[in-house]
């Protein structure tokens, strides 16, 4: 049993270690900005994976949670004097509060999760493409409200003055935390029930799984991770606007997830690393004059299509990294099944 536990924890541990090696190597080579942006995307894609990977329902709306987390964390960390100047009409509690960076993050996560719970009560009843369109509607609603509610967000313009605190280390710690949360959720009874509904909703319900609560749980957990991603993002750029949480961002995050392989956690992370590496390489070619302006995007799009034709289930093909399996020695095979230890099934060569 202990060995199996270790085996189960191997995939996330290996993913985190590999991500760490890639990140700190690239950062050491002077790619700090790219690495930070990549790690922020890891947080977002892993957050999305918690819901999409386990439930099998594609969500177009998760960037809305990122936006809420980013705005709330930003408002709470902009120094109070600057805040009075930038957002003079801010409601009383928010205008004077100065909880500090860590508490601001926790508040942003908690409020976003609560919002996701309320919205999810309605959205999680839907399935398939209806759910997809409903989450898309959620994104439109949230960005519309954020860009129009000027007392809270400064309106359609840019909210500036956010302290720049995200660096490679904070981004990596957050990404590792997101991976751990995703792994714990996947191994939890709720996660297992949810994947049962993904594989066959009717059969899972016949076995007594109530699909709405398990979906809702995944929705809330993934919204919380998205909020942390928003917090990182806002404190990386130092300024945000409602437009940064657009459909373009949604596209990028979903593409990274699917290219990596949406059924495995390691695949989600792999997708981010692969797409980031390719984008970087193309942008170098573009600035070197090999590709015309905008050519990098075109090549990236073509690469995504080719990868999907080559591996329709993503680069990871939905599998997690595993310890090399111990094969039965040829002698044992010759000896026949009876001599094998109990529970050790013979596999086809």
């Amino acid at each position, binding site marked *: 049993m202990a060995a199996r536990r270790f085996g189960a924890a191997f995939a996330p541990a290996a993913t985190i270690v590999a991500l760490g090696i890639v990140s700190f190597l690239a950062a050491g080579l002077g790619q700090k900005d790219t690495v930070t942006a990549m790690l922020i995307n890891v947080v977002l894609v892993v957050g999305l994976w918690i819901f*999409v990977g386990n439930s099998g329902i*594609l969500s177009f709306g998760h960037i809305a949670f990122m936006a809420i987390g980013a705005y709330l964390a930003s408002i709470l960390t902009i120094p109070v004097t600057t805040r009075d100047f930038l957002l003079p009409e801010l409601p009383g509690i928010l205008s004077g509060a100065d909880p500090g960076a860590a508490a601001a993050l926790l508040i942003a996560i908690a409020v976003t999760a609560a919002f996701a719970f309320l919205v999810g009560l*309605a*959205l999680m*009843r*839907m*399935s398939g*493409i*209806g759910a*997809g*369109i*409903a989450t*898309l*509607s*959620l994104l*439109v*609603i949230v960005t*519309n*409200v954020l860009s*129009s509610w000027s007392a809270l967000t400064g309106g359609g313009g840019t909210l500036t003055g956010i302290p720049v605190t995200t660096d490679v280390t904070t981004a990596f710690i957050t990404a590792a935390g997101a991976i751990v949360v995703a792994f714990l959720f996947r191994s939890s009874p709720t996660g297992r029930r949810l994947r049962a509904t993904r594989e066959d*909703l*009717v059969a899972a319900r016949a076995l007594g799984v109530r699909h709405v609560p398990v979906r809702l749980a995944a929705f809330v957990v993934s919204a919380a991770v998205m909020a942390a991603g928003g917090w990182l993002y806002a404190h990386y750029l130092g300024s945000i606007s409602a437009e940064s949480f657009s*459909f373009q961002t949604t*596209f990028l995050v*979903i*593409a990274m997830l*699917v*290219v990596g392989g*949406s059924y495995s956690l390691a695949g989600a992370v792999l997708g981010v690393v692969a797409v980031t590496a390719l984008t970087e390489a193309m942008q170098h070619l573009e600035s070197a004059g090999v590709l*015309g*302006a*905008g*050519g990098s*995007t*075109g090549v*990236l*799009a*073509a690469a*995504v*299509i080719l990868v*999907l*034709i080559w591996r*329709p*289930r*993503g680069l990871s093909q939905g599998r997690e990294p595993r310890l090399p399996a111990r094969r039965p020695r040829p002698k044992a095979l010759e000896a026949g099944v009876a001599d094998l230890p109990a529970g050790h099934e013979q596999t086809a060569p």
Partner: protein
Amino acid sequence: MIQHVFDAASLGALYAVMALGVALVFGVMRLMNFAYGALIMIGGSLLRAPGGAPWPVYVLLSIFGVCLAALAMERIAFRPLRGADASTLLVTSFALVIGLEALASILLGSRAKSVNILPSLSGSVGLLGSSIAWIDIATIVCAVALMVAFSAFLRFSPLGMQVRAASEDFRMARLLGVRANRVIAAAFAASGVFAGTAAVLLVAQTGTLTPSMGLTPVLIAFVATVIGGMGSLYGAALGGAVLGILSVALPAALPVGAQPYRNAMIFTIVILILLVRPQGLVGNAISGERI
């Protein structure tokens, strides 16, 4: 008042045309084709093709060109992925949009361009004391004509019947001898005709052209398809009409303070429709999952 009615009817007709193109491909392939937005963009760009030909030539060129582009898209990107996961197909269509938009901004520049293809339609006509723009009337007439022609095609031509059969149950249709490649190509070609028409009407209304002009129409078309009833072509047209009417009626009815929140309200109504009727306005209960 009459002006509002015409605005609503024209927008509803335009949205219905957009939605039908999306619903056709969704019907046979279960693919939400985001690249439909790129088709609209291609149609708009073709209206700016060089040469001083009279405007009907440009309109035909645009519709025909989009039709070809849709066929090429199916052959190159979607056929190798036949039978893949819905999310894989979806991301492929995302990638097509991004790639084609990048191509358009390389070839045509990323700034908005003004196009005036139908100058004779820019005026308006007086009717019962309010002025109705000619373009609104033209949109309604075009949309209705296209839908009548299309519905005749679906009803009476053998290929149309195969498309309908495939929309209802693709596997069953194949078992009965419908050729998958043929019917999917037909759906894409027809979807191209709708995208081309929508592009011409859209450019004639707004007079501008940008590489990302297709994004809003395609999102509207998706929403219309889903609230109308997935897989039902008449439902998609109805969904488009409902969205168009909502977009005109809400701003007219809302107080000034709430105007900026118009989109939020429209999409809240969309979520409510989906909650009350998950199968869409037209779909029936049977369209759910069968065991």
